[in-house]
């Protein structure tokens, strides 16, 4: 009995934290008047009109594709180059490793507006604004510190005896990296991929400043689509939000064991 009560309390806590999100999702199935109804409506006949309207918008599909392209491309590039660098940092400890790792991290710790300001000025000078290349590479840069930190931690955890055995058996370093190390740190790669993906997926400010018509993503569409001609466009916002938060929440569900690694830059390992 006490156990049941305990479980009930736990579920209630989880529900309290989830309630605002649930409210967004519920709202997306309401009409505009139902969303603004006083007192709020909890039971209603759901409508799919908001979603139909959303998918009918050209800018939605465009921005959704952009979100997808930007986050996938940036994250794959970032994790690939970070893996190589993390390997070098871990195995060869070149001079200045600690300092470089430190600098990489402090960039990631900078408030977004301070980080994007000099990059914007640079893009103004070079004409790189609103170009997929410029956006992807910048997002990749922003994902690198995180990936290097996570992957270095994982590679540190792989015994150097593997390398030695490989070398003795005549494997090249590339072969060692690809065939011996990579499979062992695969969980770290996954953690780096998904957490950078969530970051770029949710990112608003950079895309807003150095992106443009061609490259604007869903958060930017959300911020600029707040108003329709008749007022705040709640149906649009709720439907768009409900769709957009599915991937991150799925990630939390599917990759729950990587959550801790991801959220702490790989400095804390373990499961919950």
């Amino acid at each position: 009995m006490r156990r049941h009560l305990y479980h009930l309390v736990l579920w209630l806590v989880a529900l309290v934290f989830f309630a605002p999100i649930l409210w967004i999702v519920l709202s997306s199935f309401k009409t505009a008047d139902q969303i603004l109804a006083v007192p709020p409506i909890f039971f209603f006949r759901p409508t799919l009109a908001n979603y139909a309207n959303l998918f009918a918008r050209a800018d939605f599909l465009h921005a959704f594709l952009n979100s997808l392209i930007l986050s996938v491309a940036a994250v794959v590039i970032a994790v690939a180059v970070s893996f190589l660098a993390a390997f070098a940092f871990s195995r060869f400890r070149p001079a200045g490793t600690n300092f470089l790792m430190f600098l990489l991290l402090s960039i990631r710790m900078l408030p977004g507006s301070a980080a994007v300001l000099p990059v914007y000025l640079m893009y103004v000078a070079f004409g790189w604004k609103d170009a997929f290349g410029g956006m992807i590479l910048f997002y990749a840069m922003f994902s690198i510190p995180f990936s290097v930190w996570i992957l270095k931690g994982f590679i540190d955890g792989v015994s150097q005896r593997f390398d030695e055995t490989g070398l003795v058996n005549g494997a090249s370093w590339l072969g060692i990296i690809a065939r011996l190390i990579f499979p062992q740190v695969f969980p770290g790669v996954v953690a780096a991929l998904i957490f950078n993906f969530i970051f770029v997926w949710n990112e608003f400010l950079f895309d807003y400043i150095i992106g443009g018509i061609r490259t604007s993503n869903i958060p930017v569409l959300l911020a600029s689509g707040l108003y329709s001609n008749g007022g705040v466009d709640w149906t649009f916002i709720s439907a768009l939000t409900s769709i957009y938060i599915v991937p991150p929440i799925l990630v939390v569900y599917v990759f729950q064991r990587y959550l801790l690694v991801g959220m702490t830059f790989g400095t804390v390992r373990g499961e919950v």
Partner: protein
Amino acid sequence: MPSDAPAIAAAPPRRLGGFAAFLGRRETLPLLLLTPVLLFFIVWNVIPTLWLLGLGFYRFSLTSGRPPIFSGLYNYVSILNDAGVWFDLSRTFVFVFLVVGIETGLGLLLGLLFWNSYDLPGRRIALTMLFSPMVVTPVASGTFWRLIYDPTFGVLNSAIRAFGFQPVSFLQEASTAFGAVLAVDVWMWTPFMVLMTLAALGSVPKAELEAAEVDRLPWHQRLRLVVLHHGKFILMLGVLLRTIDAFKTMDLIYDMTYGGPGSATELVAMTLYRRAFEAFNMGWSSALAVILLLISIAFTATFIFVLHSRERREAAA
């Protein structure tokens, strides 16, 4: 690729010779591996940062149509003399202090509550629900919290009215706006501290817990002597990461209050955004960005120090 490289991998770094010789030697490999990241680092960090440092000494507005004018320390002096910026900065620190404090306290509490939950039916779903707030797009949650808080249409005020109280304009009154934004941040990030607490608890050896059980230690001593002793490092990292993140808070403010009413919720990231991308006063903004960069470096240095202190301890052990 030198396949005949020496077997001992972690050799100390050596001084490099001429370029040709250098290419043929085993030092090439780490450099080759590092090249892409270094390229990224130089193009997207070193150059922009130099740019930032330089522009901080110029008076330059994008909309003035004039080239930058060298002005020495003018921007820095003007920031030092701008009481508004100092208020924004101190407001930011108050914000950081409060959210990290509350989130840590609440996180510890909930973490302890969830400690023993391995047989919870649907645990994975429950935890997903609990952890969701921190992965939802901040622009989206900010917007929706605006509706939840709304005094006329909001669900929160409906509840308040149902209990017979007057509705509150949470985000619009100077007295409540700061607290309302703070509450949303707590909602978003308490789950993170729960996560860290669970990790910290997981790092406690079972044997010691059982020993404490046998010794019949009172619960507060158990917590202090056993749990905190082993978990404090992870908790410390959690607090530091949250501190750094809270210092960056911007998307949420941008969407919920835009720094208002007055300057009640103006955090320093927002101040910089406003001066840089609303007013386009690039010289001044660069100077402020440099100051923020220094603060971030200080935070990061603390973080690394704590991290390494464990490594040193482990090495000593």
